[in-house]
């Protein structure tokens, strides 16, 4: 298929359609409403299911029901709406069903704003819903990556019988870039041996997340853990740039990672031996790869559009072996490459300490700078 100018949200929606999305249930919320609108036309056109639900609570429960039939189903929302979906996410996870969700993150907490942020990392990666469960979390940074990860998300969800979440942000959702969509594939409703689609000529099935007897619940919890171990063993994904001879490593995901790449390139042009590590899949987290880098680098610089959420996972992997610096913009603000470049230069030329928590150090510097 040819490359064309595509808006992130529309590309994500259309990619899902191309790989056999049978049902979409959603609710309008900025900055992802284009997903809903695009599918409100496309799905009926193709004879597939589209429902604008009465709320995100209803939408996720429609996804839950639809997932029980074994079809490919999806919903999308943005931060406050995803909060509403947490109960449903826990139920779907407890029932071990495949489904794809997208969170086009915006500023928060609360109503926040409609500008891009990365402040739902913890909600997605460390479980926003109740109970012990995991989501596979994919973090694109371009429209093309959004398309590719949407395609992957459906396969991963079915492979492991769990939710795959595309964690993107308002910037990627709204921007237009040249990208290529996959060819249209026919819809295939797989005949899973767990789907509740009517006990015709077979034993009846139950799909539920209730295990009132604690030993049975424990069995389920252990099963979920074992599945997660398989995901951890097989689905680590990240991209590395200029790391071969790098002394300093910048780490960022999504839009922050993309901005950081521009800064890293500029820094290289100025002779600084810096590289970029960009996780593509955030959960499972690439602890081993970070651990490896921590053994060889002089310092990390973590760049995020939140108050330092992935930062803590980096610190965990680094185990205090090197200084970790932090730079953030909050409130829906996207950092500029030259902000990150200044940080890289500071890290490359300053004697760094590990005495203070990187977040506190950043906040001090940031507030001092704002006062000037």
């Amino acid at each position, binding site marked *: 298929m040819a490359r064309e100018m595509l808006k992130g949200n529309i590309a994500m929606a259309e990619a899902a359609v191309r790989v056999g999305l049978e049902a979409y249930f959603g609710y309008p919320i900025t900055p992802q409403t284009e997903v809903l609108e695009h599918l409100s036309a496309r799905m009926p056109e193709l004879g597939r299911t589209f*429902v604008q639900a009465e709320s995100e*609570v*209803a939408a996720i*429960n*429609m996804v*839950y*029901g639809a997932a029980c039939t074994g079809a490919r189903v999806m919903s999308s929302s943005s931060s406050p709406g995803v909060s509403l979906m947490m109960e449903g996410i826990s139920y779907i996870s407890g029932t071990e069903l495949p489904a794809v969700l997208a969170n086009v993150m915006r500023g928060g907490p609360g109503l926040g704003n409609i500008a891009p942020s990365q402040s739902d990392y913890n909600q997605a990666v460390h479980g926003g819903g109740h109970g012990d469960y995991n989501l596979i979390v994919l973090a694109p940074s371009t429209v093309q990556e959004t398309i590719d990860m949407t395609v992957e998300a459906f396969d991963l969800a079915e492979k492991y019988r769990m939710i795959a979440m595309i964690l993107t942000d308002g910037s990627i959702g709204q921007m237009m870039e040249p990208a290529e969509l996959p060819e249209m594939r026919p819809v295939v409703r797989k005949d899973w041996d767990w789907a509740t689609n*009517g006990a015709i000529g077979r034993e009846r099935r*139950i799909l539920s997340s209730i295990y009132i007897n604690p030993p049975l619940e424990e069995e389920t919890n252990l099963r979920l853990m074992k599945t997660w171990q398989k995901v951890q063993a097989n689905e680590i994904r990240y991209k590395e740039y200029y790391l071969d001879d790098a002394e300093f490593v910048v780490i960022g995901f999504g839009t922050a990672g993309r901005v950081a790449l521009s800064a890293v390139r500029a820094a290289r042009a100025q002779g600084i031996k810096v590289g970029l590590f960009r996780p593509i899949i955030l959960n499972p987290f690439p602890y081993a790869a970070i651990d490896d880098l921590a053994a060889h680098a002089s310092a990390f610089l973590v760049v995020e559009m939140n108050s330092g959420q992935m930062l803590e996972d980096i610190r965990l992997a680094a185990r205090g072996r090197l200084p970790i610096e932090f730079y953030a913009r909050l409130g829906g603000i996207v950092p500029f490459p030259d902000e990150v470049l200044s940080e890289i230069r500071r890290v490359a030329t300053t004697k760094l300490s590990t005495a203070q928590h990187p977040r506190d150090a950043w906040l001090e510097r940031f507030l001092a700078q704002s006062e000037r």
Partner: protein
Amino acid sequence: MTTLAIPENLVYSRPESLTPVHNHYCPGCTHGIAHHLIAEVLDEMNLRERTIGVAPVGCSVFAYNYFNFDFVEAAHGRAPAMATGIKRLLPDRNVFTYQGDGDLASIGMAEIMHAAVRGENITVIFINNAIYGMTGGQMAPTTLPGQKTTSSPNGRDVETTGYPIRMAEILSNMDGAGYIVRRSLHDPKNIRLAKKAIRIAFETQMHGLGFSMVELLSTCPTNWGVTPVEALTWLSDHMIPAYPLGDFKVSEHIAAIKL
């Protein structure tokens, strides 16, 4: 007394659509009556294999253990949304929810209203016993004024908690609703009428004639603090005046269905 039981002597036996399982409902709880009526209707319509039930949160959270067909378990109040997801993808199956008064009229209010608004071709069996059973007898939106519950120990005060909610009347106003009726399970005559209503509700779905709901006035002897037999009298004396029995919406196409 015992006579050889030959097949033509058989008047009634336990329906196929019920699993051979002792249920956990309190002795005399009319959930069990609703369950066997649904099972009998599905047997008579030969729909067992094509039916998918959606269980609520409430005393009937384990309903999936008692019916011999595919069942899924919804979050509290969300059964109509789950049923929507299932029915949209499996339009030729018979999809029904089975919900209590907390599940449907409290936490699930948005989901039930909008399923009716959208005219989802699902069937809802609504068990109204004016109380929250599973959690030990708290006030429900359907609790009667002055009725004592564990969260209205001095009797329901309408000044601060409002009046009972009549769901059949409300949903009958939705253009997407095809068949909305209220029946009762307190005596044989009304139970027979309830069974017929359940039959028509499933026929409504099978004919694609819109959203159908059968509200069933039911007893909760344990949380009302009376015996099962006394509970039947409490229902007819107090609940029927508050929740009139009858047909609130029957579209002409449904009225024309020959059973």
